[in-house]
């Protein structure tokens, strides 16, 4: 469940709707009723207003805390540190991005083996986004020239052909800046 929420765009979209729809329903209902149905002043007391204000702000703070605390294990800095400290050594891969292609030191990886992507740009700002074969973005990295490297460790869990795309606009052939990597079953 948490994996779906924090590791896919559709998880983010689901949470978006869970926040937006209740707000829309409540706010628009109040505006409609107070504008078109009964615009008389309500008899709500200051004490009641204080209570509702306390409840509302407590709810908002609690929701913000929950969604951020639950996301910690999915932060790349966190899972990269965990993978680096694990038993299986990460495979280092260098990625050099230049308009409009990638030069990678390896293109084939195995399921379950951590891969450390060390990526940099040689000219302008580029992105290095890896897509799951089903179309989900697994992660994206922003590569700013002059910065040493952007880096994270990712462990593939399924075999297949993964698309790589640039997600930072980089000129006239930006949409053609892509590549593929292959993930195979673990050898043993």
């Amino acid at each position, binding site marked *: 469940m948490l994996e779906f929420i*924090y*590791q*896919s*765009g*559709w*998880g*983010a*979209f689901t949470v*978006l709707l869970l926040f937006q729809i209740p*707000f*829309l329903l409540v*706010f628009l209902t*109040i*505006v409609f009723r*107070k*504008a078109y149905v*009964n*615009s*008389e*002043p*309500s008899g709500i007391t200051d004490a009641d*207003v204080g209570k*509702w*204000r306390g409840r*509302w*702000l407590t709810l*908002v703070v609690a929701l*913000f805390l929950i969604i*951020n605390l639950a*996301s*910690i294990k*999915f932060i790349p*800095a966190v899972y990269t540190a965990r993978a680096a400290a694990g038993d299986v050594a990460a495979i280092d891969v260098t990625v050099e991005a230049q*308009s409009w292609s990638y030069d990678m030191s390896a293109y084939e990886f195995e399921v379950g083996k951590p891969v450390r992507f060390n990526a940099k740009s040689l*000219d*302008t*700002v580029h992105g290095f986004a890896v*897509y799951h074969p089903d*179309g*989900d*973005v697994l992660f*994206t*990295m*922003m590569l*700013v*020239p*002059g*910065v040493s490297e*952007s*880096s994270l460790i990712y462990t593939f869990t399924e075999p297949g052909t993964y698309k790589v*795309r640039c*997600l*930072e*606009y*980089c*000129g*006239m052939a*930006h*949409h*053609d800046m892509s590549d593929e990597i292959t993930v195979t079953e673990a050898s043993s």
Partner: protein
Amino acid sequence: MSIANSIVSSVPVFGRMFKVESEPELNDINFWPAAMIMASFLWLSVAVLLGIALPLTQMLGLDASLFYTAITAHGAAMAFPYVFQLMMGVGLHRAGGCVGKPVTGWLPAAAFWLMNIGGILFTIAILMGLKISYAVMYPLPVVGVATGQWSMASVIIGFTGIAGILITVILLYPVQVIKMLFFDKEREELVLNRRKLSDPGMLGMAMAAFVLLIMGSPLLIVASAVLLFLYGIVPFAWIAWAADPMVFQFVFYIFAHNLMEAMAIMVVSAVYATLPLYLADGTRKLYSDKMANLALWILLLTSVTSFFHHFFTMFPALPSALSYHGNIMSYGTGIGAAITIFTVTMTIVKHGLRPEAGVMAVLMGFTLYILDGVSAIITSNIAWSFQLHGTMWQAGHTMAVLIAMSMMWMGVLLHHYPVITGRVLDAASGKWFVILFTVGAMGVNWSFLAAGAAGMPRRFASWDQEGWMVYGYLILLFGLCLALSLLIFLINVSKARRIDTGMAASPAE
């Protein structure tokens, strides 16, 4: 006749919409704002056509360069010459009427000319081939020259235009507001609705001016240095510090992020000012000025350093501590927004509402602004940012915040229009504008966000991959709905009737 009024009078079609025919003693707070508002709607018309052209270039399989030309010109026109200029025009009129100070002299004139000439120069550069998106993407402009994508002449013209826009946004407009709020002499005949600085309807205007001036200055310095080199005035060695991509990226986003936040603070303040004028029981007060001001202060303090969320995916080049800080501050802005929601909602609950087009546009714009705020805080969470950064999600966020602010300002404009022009608008047309704009804006926004969730890259001239074109059709459909609503708005404005003697200038005044 003032130069500003001559400009408005001489422009076909749009000039008639915003020509000042109100009481002559108010001319000093009406002429330049009317010129700015008129020019902003000219730019909007161009931006809407370009916005519709974007999905069409993809559906018709046209050349990618057309898409990148349209997206650069559309973004540039929307963000600055349209939304910012509209805000500048309505905001300066509001400020003048609240403190009784004139909007005259060289400052508003320079702001008008530099914004519009800057916008025209940037557009010429785009037509010459400069396709850098409205975010500039430095060092792309110079890399593009090195790789033969466009000429150095287009970069020089484009950067000159951008400089004009930046001088307006970062220097001229904030200085004009600060001058009016703190220095100029009050003229009793200009006071329409007196407000103090502690009034929530005024506080945001002052905050926004200082944010723009302070947070924009580093970019102005860096951009000026680069421009001096481009003009051949100084050698590269003198400006190498400014040409570093990291330096430019950081000063750009410190400005661009805070520009959006400043505009949001200012428009929330305008909501606080406008809503009480339409309360059913005639109270003319928010349920709590203290809560309203608290929300503005929280928005101000948290938004200033939340810009780090633009750089989460540079890890580890952006230290984790700064990422965590950006994440937390971004959610802090959510607390400010939550207090604002409560203040607006409780004011309506307590006092009822008179549903006129102006206030309904303000409230629907506010609704869009909150919906967009949700998409903003989601992508400001570090974990989600690594799935969403660079996708259509973020394009949707940028577009939605501009559209939401635009609608709130158009609502405020509907309120001020009779005072500025001396003419009244048709209520039924105003209602249809609000309905169609709301439906179009929500539809476009959800289409963008769904496209981002599906992994569709932003600023990407190949929508036919992975089945993404379906989002293109939805964007076009709801975009046409938005365009229709704007057409209704402009027709309504062009058919406005002169106020009869004795008729109230505005129903709420």
